[in-house]
């Protein structure tokens, strides 16, 4: 495969492979066509012949191993890596170099001013890192796993290569240690590579390696006895060795400048405390935990997880005296007390455990370490619990607050967390004792009740802490008690009615009205006026007597009509024309629109007409839009036929029956009567409506007559329309008469009398009714006029009497 790869590489000699995506590009391509990677970096242009250090990653490992074995040992891979590194790595190194220079300057400044590193902001930053150690350790675990995998792969690929170059690289690293800007991770990686290549026995790696940063593990692995001190060819750079040589005198400032600043202050303090070189396996930031017993360092320092180091670091930080001028008084007091107690406790435990550890060192070093860590962890947990509780020893208690501040609403917080802040913020000054103030009596008297009660309720409310449920421990989060505590009775309103005198009078009048109505119904009976009673008897008796007298006696006092209505004249003319002018017997459609109430009047009206038509033996067809109409029509014809016995009712009179449907039925009958009119045996019945000579409508109902008139005028305008109407329907039919939709009309008894006068009919019954009507009308008119005059006289008399009085 390697041979094939070499052949392919030679054939593709002119092609340029992207180091990032491994895609082939043209030789003159400036960037990768796939990923846009810069294929012609500046450093490569300056030294195009030198091999890229990344080529070792790209080529076959076997070929790399072979090449490395065959290559000149003087040509160091690290050298090439430092010189032929890619652009991004060069930038990283440059930035690292600048940072280190800045840190060197800062360290020099710190040496001159040693108080500054314990500034509050630095402590807070470190504390924040410590507090987040658990969370960040989990994140670092994943990253460390990835880094470990990459390192393992690199170890597999380049173990043989780098082992061959280790000697040269050691020299180069020792010579250029000051200028080497590679970060610690890179250095640890190469040191690990060298260790792996030296074929030393593998050390026991804790299972929880992922929680420990890789470079710590590498450092711890490299610092194991017999490997770091005894190996003359230690490939680790000289500047790295300063982490392990704690027993050496204080390093030079130039070397310290390469140490990160977060390690520097602790390292400076701890260098004097570290006496044993057994701790040199720990990095400086881990070794500065001087509070740890030496036994723990000797036995299993390399297996300590981060959280233990963090706890130790916290213990050390508490042991360190903080500048009192920076921290508040209450913090210094509490911290001094706590720290002294804690340090004494820890030191006592350290002594005990140190002796125990010395006994059991060879047996269970890890267990001893863990036991110590547990104790330390418990102490640290106690400290943390004290800190987390915070309120266990607050800067001041509520009972310590002066009484004049208890009712101060500014100090009454609304939440649990605000209380803590408030307690920390408001520190009573013991030097300035303020005497409890008291409001003047007159001012207390002026205070409203609402100004006092809500304050009390809020004060008690803030003291309530939820003891159960998901909100346990929180204060003032539930407001269910607010309404109970802040409840105040509803305002009182007076129930008296404010009313004016005018309104009272109006109400009295209204009450009097209803009272009078009740009195009228209960107390007063209708007063019977004898005069009125007599009048009420006289008038009906007079009317009935006069009508009977007029109907029974044929007196000459009542004249027959001389003036005839024009419609009656036309009616008589048409009837005479039908009888006299036509050769054949006229076919008359009799429309009977009556319910029978005016049957007597209609009989008087139509009797002379039917007698006239019977003289010519006219064919009569009866139809009605009311159920009783045909029956009434037959009755009229039968009554009129009494004086004409020769008139054959069975043959000449046809009952067409009831016509349902109102106007629709009338319209249908007028449009097609051949189907509406049942074909009777009488031949005289015409087949169509147009064959009728005339239509004689007998009605006392103006609405029904109107329907017939409108439909006949609309559909059969040439039809002769004659109407014999009762007096009550005449006014509504007058417009149709005026518009000639009705050709002739016999209107009421006056029309019947006029028609009788025109045809010279001497019917006694007609004239008796005529006399009765005229007498009755005269009496009614006289009574109306007499009554009007009577009331007018009463009105005038009543109007004159007050004036005279």
């Amino acid at each position, binding site marked *: 495969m390697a041979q094939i790869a070499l052949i392919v590489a030679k054939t593709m000699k002119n092609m340029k492979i992207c180091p990032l995506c491994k895609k082939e590009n043209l030789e003159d391509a400036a960037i990768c066509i796939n990923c846009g990677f810069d294929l012609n970096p500046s450093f490569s242009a300056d030294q195009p012949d030198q091999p890229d250090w990344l080529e070792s990653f790209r080529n076959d490992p076997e070929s790399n191993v072979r090449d490395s074995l065959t290559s000149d040992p003087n040509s160091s891979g690290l050298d090439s890596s430092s010189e032929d590194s890619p652009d991004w790595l060069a930038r990283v190194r440059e930035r690292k170099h600048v940072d280190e220079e800045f840190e060197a300057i800062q360290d020099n400044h710190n040496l001159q001013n040693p108080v500054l590193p314990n500034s509050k902001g630095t402590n807070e930053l470190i504390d924040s890192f410590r507090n987040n150690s658990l969370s960040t350790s989990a994140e670092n675990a994943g990253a460390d796993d990835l880094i470990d995998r990459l390192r393992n792969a690199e170890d597999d690929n380049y173990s043989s290569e780098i082992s061959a170059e280790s000697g040269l690289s050691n020299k180069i690293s020792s010579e250029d240690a000051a200028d080497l800007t590679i970060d610690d991770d890179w250095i640890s990686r190469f040191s690990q590579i060298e260790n792996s290549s030296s074929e030393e026995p593998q050390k026991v790696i804790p299972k929880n390696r992922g929680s420990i940063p890789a470079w710590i593990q590498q450092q711890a692995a490299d610092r194991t006895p017999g490997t770091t001190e005894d190996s003359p060819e230690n490939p680790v750079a000289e500047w790295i060795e300063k982490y392990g040589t704690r027993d050496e005198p204080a390093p030079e400032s130039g070397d310290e400048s390469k140490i990160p600043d977060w390690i520097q202050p602790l390292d400076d303090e701890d260098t004097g405390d570290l006496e044993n070189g057994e701790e040199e396996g720990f990095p400086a930031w881990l070794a500065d935990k001087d509070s740890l017993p030496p036994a723990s360092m000797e036995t299993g320092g390399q297996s300590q997880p981060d959280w233990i180091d963090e706890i130790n670091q916290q213990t050390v930080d508490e042991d360190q005296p903080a500048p009192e001028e920076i921290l508040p008084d209450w913090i210094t007091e509490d911290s001094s007390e706590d720290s002294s107690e804690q340090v004494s406790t820890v030191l006592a435990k350290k002594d005990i455990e140190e002796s125990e550890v010395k006994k059991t060192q060879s047996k269970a070093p890890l267990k001893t370490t863990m036991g110590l860590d547990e104790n330390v962890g418990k102490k640290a947990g106690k400290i943390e619990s004290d800190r987390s509780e915070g309120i266990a020893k607050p800067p001041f208690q509520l009972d310590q607050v002066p009484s004049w501040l208890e009712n101060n609403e500014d100090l009454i917080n609304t939440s649990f967390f605000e209380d803590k802040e408030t307690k920390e913020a408001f520190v009573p000054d013991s030097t300035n004792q303020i005497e409890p103030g008291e409001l003047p009596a007159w001012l207390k008297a002026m205070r409203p009740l609402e100004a006092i009660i809500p304050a009390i309720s809020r004060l008690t409310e803030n003291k309530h802490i939820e003891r159960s449920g998901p909100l346990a421990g929180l204060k003032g989060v539930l407001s269910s008690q607010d309404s109970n505590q802040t409840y105040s009775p509803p305002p009182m309103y007076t129930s008296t009615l404010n009313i004016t005198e005018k309104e009272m009078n109006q109400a009295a009048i209204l009450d009097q009205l209803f009272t009078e109505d009740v009195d009228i119904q209960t107390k007063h009976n209708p007063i019977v006026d004898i005069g009125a009673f007599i009048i009420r008897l006289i008038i009906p008796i007079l009317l009935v007597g006069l009508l009977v007298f007029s109907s029974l006696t044929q007196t000459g006092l009542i*004249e*027959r*009509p*001389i*003036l*005839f209505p024009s419609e009656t004249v036309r009616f008589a003319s048409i009837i005479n024309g039908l009888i006299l002018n036509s050769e054949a017997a006229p076919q008359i459609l009799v429309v009977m629109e009556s*319910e*029978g*109430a005016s*049957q*007597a009047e209609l009989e008087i009206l139509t009797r002379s007409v039917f007698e006239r038509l019977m003289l010519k033996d006219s064919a009569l067809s009866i139809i009605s839009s009311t159920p009783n109409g*045909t*029956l*009434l029509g*037959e*009755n009229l014809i*039968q009554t009129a036929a009494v004086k004409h016995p020769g008139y054959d009712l*069975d043959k000449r009179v046809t*009952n067409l029956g*009831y*016509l*349902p*449907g*109102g106007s*629709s*039925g009338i*319209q*249908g009958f007028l*449009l*097609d009567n051949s*189907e*509406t009119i049942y074909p009777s045996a009488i031949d005289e019945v015409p087949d169509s409506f147009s064959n009728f000579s005339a239509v004689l409508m007998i009605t006392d109902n103006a609405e029904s007559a*109107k329907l017939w008139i409108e439909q006949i005028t609309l559909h059969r305008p040439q039809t002769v329309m004659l109407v014999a109407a009762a*007096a009550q329907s*005449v*006014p*509504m*039919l*007058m*417009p149709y008469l*005026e518009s000639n939709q009705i050709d002739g009309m016999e*209107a*009421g*008894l*006056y029309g019947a*009398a*006029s028609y009788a006068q025109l045809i010279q009919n001497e019917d006694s019954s007609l004239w008796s009714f*005529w006399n009765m*009507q*005229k007498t009755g*009308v*005269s009496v*009614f*008119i006289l009574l*109306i*006029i007499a*009554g*009007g005059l009577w*009331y007018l006289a009463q*009105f005038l008399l009543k109007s004159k009497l007050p004036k005279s009085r």
Partner: protein
Amino acid sequence: MKSIPVTILAILSGIVVLAGFFFPGTMLSVFRIYALELAIILAAFASLIAIANLIIVHWNKIFSEPRQSFYSAILLAGFLCIFFAGIIFTPANTFFSKFSATVIFTVESSLLALLCLSLAVACFKLFQKRKSGLAVVFGISTIIFLLTFSGFFSTAIQFSWLKPFLAIINSLPLAGARGILLGISIGAIVTGLRVLIGADRPYSG
């Protein structure tokens, strides 16, 4: 929802009948005639249903409220008598005609007589209670109508000036009747249009 098809049917029927009226001699007019005949048959059948419903109601009332159903029993007795008499004697029979007409005339005439007396009493009460201008106007109009329609002046031929006076008086009820008829006609047109556009649906139940 159920009124929607009924409304559509009513509107279509009205539009077709109206169009058949404006376009005689076409299919629309033929459809209009058939629609009218169908309406007449339905109205006749509705009359039979109304008669049957009347009998059922009074029959049930007799057995449900025996003490208060005296007039219902009379109604049913009269209906059965006339019904079986018409079936036996046929409507053209004189006896049947006289028998039925006598009952109808007496009842209807009695009702009309009561109406006349009640109206006369109401007129007197009106004059007695309302002593105002309205009573005077009502009295005057009553007098005029009595004089004109009763033929009171039909004999006064010797008064030449009376004829134009009577013509003027006769024109007063004529004007009022025209106004009433015009109002009725306009109301009927509006009602028809409302039915055609679906704004008024009295048939939807």
